[in-house]
């Protein structure tokens, strides 16, 4: 019981203002970060553009890569102004190269 109250207090303090999203990396980004995904804590009401501002500060060894990526939220392409929600699955997608050679 006591534990339950303590948890809810923590949640009220932390979760009310912040939310967590899972960010997936593919292709060149997966190699650059050495990871397939990461949990990111953002301010409530953050947009895709806000999230990208955080990432643009990270060096991935390829100039201009951040200008070329697309973002999917819950497996659908999204726009910069779209607002993220707690628990969203965000994917950072470098230009795709499936299919065959040119």
């Amino acid at each position: 019981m006591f534990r339950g109250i303590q948890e809810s207090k923590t949640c009220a303090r932390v979760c009310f203002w912040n939310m967590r999203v899972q960010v997936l990396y593919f292709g060149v980004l997966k190699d650059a970060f050495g990871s397939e995904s990461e949990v990111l804590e953002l301010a409530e009401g953050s947009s895709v553009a806000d999230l990208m501002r955080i990432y643009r500060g990270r060096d991935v060894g390829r100039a201009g890569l951040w200008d070329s990526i697309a973002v999917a939220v819950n497996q659908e392409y999204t726009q910069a102004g779209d607002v993220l929600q707690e628990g969203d699955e965000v994917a950072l997608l470098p230009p795709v190269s499936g299919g065959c050679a040119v």
Partner: protein
Amino acid sequence: MRIEITDGVIAAEEIVAEMKAGTDGAVCVFDGIVRDNTRGRRTLHLDYEAYREMALEQMRGLAAEAVAKFGVRDVAVVHRLGRLLVGETSVLIVVASAHRGAAFDACRWLIDTLKKTVPIWKKEQFVDGAVWADGEPFPSDIGLPRTSVTGAQSADGEPFPDEIVASKSADRLVGESVDEPGVDDVGRIR
């Protein structure tokens, strides 16, 4: 419609045979295979990976759109992931239709659109190193507008004018460059 992502060999002949029906007058097949070089650099193999669930959903959407847009009877789109050797099929597109014109057009549209929008990537393993293939720029309705992402960043300066971005895209469409020249150019200017 047969829409699949597979880790095994694509049984191309079998799939093509299954796609034929009595009302069809044409079956157009695109069999994308692994080439032994990129711009003369010898390729050992390719490793394909995908954002699997989304890629499958995108492929389903493209197939439905092709049927609606070109009026073809049926479509199969199958993509393989994992390590592929020279000569192996990475993607198979089959379009069955009453008439050849629609079948050709739909087939061409499907592979061209798939290569720009379906989240699949390939890493090329050459004799002297490996590199993620550059890929084609995302269509404007999918990629993030540069202004909305960079607008609030005071340190980054103004976004490049459209003509610079457009010429960068044109350069990259010429071939799957390994060194990503268009992007490097932008980086140097900046």
